[in-house]
């Protein structure tokens, strides 16, 4: 799969922490018709003691407001959810998740942050690329993309 095709599936968005909150982030840039404007970052459910869950870094959750319309607003009662997993071979990224396997949708989210998600993060959505065989290509593309991006 070449970079041009991956680029056509790529939707970048930026989120910033709402002051005086612990994990409530609001969209600051990028397309507004994809994810909810507000997303929370944090693990609120009790973590199970399993090998899989030990690799889980975080969770993102969000609900589309009544006035909002997005890519996933018809699913799961207007809620989005994804576990965020670490990617050892791509340590510059905070982690990745998939929206939403429960509905047979495989959209890959890669989270990038210059401050370990304490103030802001970028969500890089790759439509249809949330399957294991596509992950290395999406990560490599994003690595090049961010390296080329003016800082």
């Amino acid at each position, binding site marked *: *799969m*070449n970079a*041009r*095709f991956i680029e*056509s*599936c790529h939707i970048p968005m930026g989120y910033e922490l709402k002051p005086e909150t612990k994990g409530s982030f609001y969209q600051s840039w990028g397309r507004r018709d994809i994810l909810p404007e507000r997303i929370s970052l944090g693990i609120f459910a009790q973590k199970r003691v399993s090998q899989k869950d030990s690799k889980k870094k975080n969770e993102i959750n969000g609900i589309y407001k009544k006035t909002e319309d997005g*890519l996933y607003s018809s699913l799961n009662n207007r809620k989005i959810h994804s576990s965020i997993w670490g990617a050892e071979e791509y340590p510059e990224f905070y982690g990745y998740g998939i929206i939403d396997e429960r*509905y*047979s*949708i*495989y959209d890959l989210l890669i989270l990038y942050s210059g401050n370990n998600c304490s103030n802001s993060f970028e969500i890089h959505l790759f*439509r*249809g690329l949330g*399957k294991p065989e596509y992950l290395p290509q999406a990560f490599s593309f994003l690595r090049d993309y961010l390296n080329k991006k003016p800082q």
Partner: protein
Amino acid sequence: MNLDYIEISKFLNKDKLCSDYLQLNARYDGAERYSFNGCNKIEVWHKEASNQVVVKGSIPYFINGHNFYSSHKDWIEGLEYIQGCLQINIFSGLVNCFEFGTIQEIPFPESDFLRNHIKAKGMQVREYKKGNILTGKEFDSPSLKVKLYDVQRNIKNKLDKPIREDLSKAYAWDKEKHYIKLENHYKKPEAHFRGNIYLNELLSSGFQQSLKTGLLTSYNSIMKTGNSIIPCHKGDINASTIPLMILKELESIYNFNTEELIKGKLKAIPEDVFSPADRKARLRTIRDNLKKISLQGGSPYDIKELLQARIEASTNP
């Protein structure tokens, strides 16, 4: 040599089409038309009554953004992505029509090349022009259309600069050179191959090989001109030698004899216009001119050897 445009249909029976990745473009009576974004869009139709999905478009354009070259791997990747998003087994889909062709560099201008490809037996010829310049020719029959066109013009006009730069780096495309596209458009594969063709079958190596051979056969069936030897001296080419050269080249294609046709025309001119002496004098001049013209075996515009070499290279890379 690769597949290009394709139309695949698939009956879903009790399954549902996943339209999460599709944009609805239009609703018709009993059908919906969607577009599916990649580097370039493809069309997806859903026919409600029969619960049938039809995927139409160029997979190379969808996955690569151009059709200069696409590998078998590109095709598989593109189709797997489509089937993953639509949640259908596209490989068992029926192929309604498809194109298989190649881009070939040629050592002469594209319009000269096209002008010297005249007709194919049992096929209707259609020419495409931009202003006065010939840009393409189609040789059409009920189940197969053979297309020859100036692909250099398409690359320069249709593709963005970054893609053109990629073509230069990856495939040595050169904007100063000449390229044509030769393509077999199978309008009715079931009639041409005497049976339904499914996508998995189409992608098999045996079938791909037969498509390569078919492309060469189609090209060889096109009759070419340009086989007259141009005299070396200016004095041997006067104003009436040139139309005679063209007529001599067309003789074998249209089965006529130039000299006989000219004699017939001279006889048809009334005696009060041309006396017998006038006719003799004209005929003598024409014969002298015809003597200056000689034909060589094949047309210099025939690229079958280049195509043959390309088939061999793609078979044994």
